[in-house]
């Protein structure tokens, strides 16, 4: 056997063009919420089976012609191997939850934010990853048109309009007025600016959540679509 010194020298391996770092672990999912667009009109059911009663019908678009969204709260697989998703629904009565086939939803998106509107303190507070990142005074519904309490979500953002009443930006939510049911487009509660900032904070609206225009602009920079909304 030849000695190592007699072997021809092998060329050194070239250095790789990439420097691959350590594996990247995910951050804790504690504050994550998933949402998905409805991509196929579908019946939301009370249980994850096609024979369960229908609790609502979901369309693919909102009255504002944006994608209709639902929050994904859970999932299960039925006996036939179909995946069902438990979703929060934008319907009356508020806080309705149902099951839809996963196939009726599009891709999942995740957010780490949560918006809390306090009807007693008249404040809106945005949390990201559990940390408070925004707080502002708000106007909420008068006693005859109360802002509904419960768990909702942000489902669209409107800004290409001219309406001093709504201010520069309006967010659509899944919350609906329980009394103004004949309001155009279904009486959805929005979060928007105002041309009457002197009324805030106060109980001044038809159920919507009003903010001063600088506040809604500041919120808009930090509020992703799909953010869960708690009104308490």
């Amino acid at each position, binding site marked *: 056997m030849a000695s190592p010194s007699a072997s021809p020298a092998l060329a050194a*391996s*070239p*250095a*790789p*063009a*990439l*420097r*691959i*770092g*350590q*594996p*990247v*672990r*995910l951050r804790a*999912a504690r504050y*994550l919420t*998933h949402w998905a*667009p409805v*991509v196929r009109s579908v019946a939301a059911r009370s249980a994850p089976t096609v024979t369960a009663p229908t609790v609502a019908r979901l369309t693919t678009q909102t009255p*504002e*012609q*944006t*994608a209709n*969204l639902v929050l994904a709260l859970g*999932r299960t*697989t039925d006996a036939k*191997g179909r*995946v069902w998703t438990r979703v929060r629904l934008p319907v009356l009565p508020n806080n309705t939850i149902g099951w839809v086939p*996963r*196939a009726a939803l*599009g*891709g*999942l998106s*995740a957010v780490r934010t949560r918006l809390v509107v306090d009807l007693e303190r008249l404040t809106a507070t945005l949390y990201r990853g559990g940390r408070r990142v925004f707080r502002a005074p708000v106007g909420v*519904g008068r006693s005859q*048109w109360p802002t509904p309490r419960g768990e909702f979500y942000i489902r*669209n*953002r*409107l*800004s*290409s*309009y001219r*309406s001093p*009443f*709504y201010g520069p930006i*309006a967010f*659509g939510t899944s919350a609906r*007025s329980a009394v*103004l049911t004949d*309001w*155009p*487009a279904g009486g*959805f509660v*929005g979060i*928007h600016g105002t041309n009457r900032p002197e009324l805030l904070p106060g109980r001044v*609206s*038809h*159920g*919507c959540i009003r903010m001063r225009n600088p506040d809604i602009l500041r919120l808009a920079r930090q509020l992703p*679509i799909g953010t869960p909304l708690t009104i308490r």
Partner: protein
Amino acid sequence: MIPQLPAGVDVTLDQLDRDGALREAGSRLPRGRFLGLAAGAAVAFGGLASPARGVTKGDVAILNYALSLEYLQSAFYTETERVAAVKGQAARAARVVGAVERAHVIAFRNLLGRKAIKRPLFDFRGTTEDQQAFLKTAVAFEDLAVAAYKGQAHLIESDAVLAAAVSIHSVEARHAAWVRHLFGIRPAANAFDEGKPRAEIERIVQSTSFVVARSRTRGRGGPRFTG
């Protein structure tokens, strides 16, 4: 015990998806935009300054092609881990493999700089939310990645890029063996592996309709909220 498959069996998305579970009819998405974009992007950005100094245009295209597959894999495992519907050894594999795929994405993006293609949006159609569908898809993805890297090896011009690709290729092969084992099929079925040409990889990925358009969440009309 792992069921024995006939020698030469090569599991691909096509073969795994005989029941069509992975791809629904009526794709609502821009087919051909994802992997096809990789080559286009490299050409379009050819004149820009890049951190990928010294890398030829052809190698940039191959790197972007690899990045597109790494995006697909990392998004798949990330969503699986976050949704947390997959349990046990499969969940552990998703966690470990996902962390590696994310490192690959970062490495490619750092090398390509402004020439890197953008991350697309995915809809994994429930395959991240069901144990069997997850494993099935993971096997297909890992086998696909192994075949894709191998299929490009002879086209890579730079020794440094080839060294990088080979260093990832072997990791993808380990992943493939791991998830194959978890799925209950032979981890290393063949004595020799063959690469797959890019066109075939693209066809397989596009057939899944996992790459989707972004939902429209910004409206143009005036609000009609209760005010």
